[in-house]
């Protein structure tokens, strides 16, 4: 099976979806969990998470043990918009 290239946008979509639907508990998902679920390297994930927190799409909970990430209400809105427009682009045979 041919490897499918994921765009930067689709990786963000996967990260947000993971934090929304698959976070293991109320406090959110850890970096390790996100690396495994969203299938991204640590270096790349760290940069994306920083941007998403700055943009207000993710909430960062810092505890003694580790940083955990939870989707914010703004992140949920973004994810809804992203999914809608992904469908639109898919219809043109394109990827956003």
């Amino acid at each position, binding site marked *: 099976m041919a490897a499918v*290239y994921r765009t930067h946008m689709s990786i963000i979509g996967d990260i947000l979806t993971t934090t929304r639907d698959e976070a293991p508990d109320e406090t959110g998902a850890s970096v390790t969990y996100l690396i495994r679920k969203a299938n991204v390297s640590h270096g790349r994930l760290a940069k994306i998470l920083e*941007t998403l927190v700055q943009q207000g799409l993710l909430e960062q909970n810092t505890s003694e043990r580790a940083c955990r990430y939870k989707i914010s209400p703004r992140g949920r809105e*973004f994810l809804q918009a992203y999914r809608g*427009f992904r469908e*639109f*682009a898919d219809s043109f045979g394109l990827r*956003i």
Partner: protein
Amino acid sequence: MVFVSDSLLLQIALNLLGFVVGLALGIFSYIGFKNTGSPTLFRLNISFFSIGIGFGVVGFGVMIESFVLNYSQVDSWIQTLGIGIQTVGYFFIAFSHGIKSFFPKSRYFKSIIMPLFIIPGNSLEHIIRSISFILLVYGTIETIMSYMENRKRSTIFVAAGLGLLALGEFLGWYSVVFPKSILYFVSLSTKIAGLGALFIPISQVPLRGGMKLGGSV
């Protein structure tokens, strides 16, 4: 009072319809780009705005020359200019497919605005139409290939839309060979029907709640 023929009125009406449809698709893509920051939606936005403006240039140009300037014959450069602007739009649709298929990882290539077209002065309209036709056929084939993968009904509507736009361009080129025939209006109507088919994906996007997001990632 200047006599305006029915065919001229039909030409104006169809072109203005194309202008509105193209602009509506462009605005929708722009909302998508504003919400997500996606370069693909940015290219679609440029594409549909160009197609809409291309129709608008012909529609408004013919209208102004006929009603305001009272010309008995409409200048041919208006048609050429309008079709040229539409071609830029078709180029961006084909360009997006080209990036997806051949340069999925290249960020540098994505930043290229457009290659330079070297076009001789003679037969400009023929050349522009043939470029449009090739770009649209390419876009149609790529979209059909995508349909084979995702099996989404809306994708086949888009393929049909691009195919109709290609057919419209082909008939438009033929109408240059037979200038007094009905082919021009058939060409224009086919292109409008093609643009209409591109509307199908929009109807499937839920336009509520989440579409008000301001920033992009």
